[in-house]
């Protein structure tokens, strides 16, 4: 399973949806994921990919991590995996 599918699976589980119902242009709000659900999703993503996601729940807009859509999240994670592989 590639990164995109695994991220979608985590988000779908959080939203209690089937992965096929989560599209790349979905927003977390549309999927019914609240702030606590978002933090839990990020935790699950960190565990899954063994990466650290620079997300601060106090100021989500200021974080160096775009959560505006599923596509943005997937792209951000792919970038983090790449970066953190290079530095480790």
């Amino acid at each position: 399973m590639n990164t995109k599918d695994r991220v979608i699976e985590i988000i779908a589980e959080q939203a209690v949806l089937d992965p096929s119902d989560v599209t790349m242009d979905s927003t977390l709000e549309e999927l019914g994921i609240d702030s606590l659900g978002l933090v839990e999703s990020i935790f699950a993503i960190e565990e899954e990919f063994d990466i650290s996601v620079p997300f601060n729940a106090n100021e989500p807009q200021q974080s160096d991590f775009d959560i505006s859509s599923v596509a943005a999240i997937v792209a951000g994670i792919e970038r983090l995996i790449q970066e953190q592989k290079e530095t480790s």
Partner: protein
Amino acid sequence: MKRVVITGAGTINALGHNVPDTLEAMREGRCGIGELTFRDVDRLAIRIGGQVRGYEPEERFNRQQLSLYDRFTQFTLIAAREAICQAGLEFSGDLAARAGVVLGNSGGGMTTLDENYRSVYEDGKNRVHPFVVPKLMNNAGASHVSMEFNLKGPSFTVSTACASSNHAIAQAFELVRSGASPVMIAGGSESMLCFGGVKAWEGLRVMSKDACRPFSANRNGMVQGEGAGVFVLEEYEHARRRGAEILAEVAGYAMSSDAADIVMPSKQGAARAMRGTLRDAGIDRTQVGYINAHGTGTAANDKTESAAVADVFGRHADNLMISSTKSMHGHLIGGTGAVELLACIMAVRDGIVVPTIGYDEPDPECALDVVPNEAREACVEVALSNAFAFGGLNAVLALRRLPG
């Protein structure tokens, strides 16, 4: 001042997963204490406790709820659901705005702490689940009850070790008696039966390795339990108008502080709390037929408590009955007074006085009628519930049978 009655009760503890099962077990003098089962129990010197058995969290809560509810919060919600269902109350509008929840708790989410300390210290992980803090905070139980039942009035958690529940019920009682709120949910819960929780208690060397035998000459310490007790306290006229079933009247309470020692109990502090309760409730001491003792089964508590009862009640001390149900469900610490209040309700409502089980040998220093090993029928007008906490913080409640 308003009169305050109990119109709902709920519990889960080692004796049962609801009030009827618990009362039946108490009446029959059954023991809910047994071998502890959890991870690393083989590294403990103390391996017995009053664990809640046959409990499947998945049957009561969904996955999302379980990710947020420590075991003590789960117990709280189970007891609250039973109590509020029995009371038949729904909270909306003005009632919701004024009704609140006050719960006792001592250790907070001990299982959550234990699991996550293990994960970062023992397993060397550097990341914990984001809900650790909302799970372990002491007020999680009260907060989740307020959310599930739409309680928007005064709500908080009281933490006074072994007296937490009695202090909590006293605060809720005061809010109803004063007219501030027509209905308050009150009680307490605790779940310390995990490796770290029991290991901490072991250190104090007050735990028994075999049984909790309050007031018996061969008693050798306390035994931990877990669970919750929750009650609906309602203003009498409010309950009467809607035709609610009334379990008992809460007649009064008193609180005191020993201001003496962080662990040793004080006869004076206990006596002041009992005397204050009689005064607050306007009860003559001869009206008290039953006392649910703090009765931990330690050498110090039981003789001090017996002396305090003798001091307060004088000659009437020989006429009243006093028993400790900790012999059956163990010591639920912050939840203990709430579960024990059930025995007081049964005494005044049903005329059944529950026994102190495990009683083998009389102790001249505890020369009271401790209702050894078998329940008794008696007409009890007033019952007291004692709670004397580590730290010397005491709270006593008085229940009265409703006339007619």
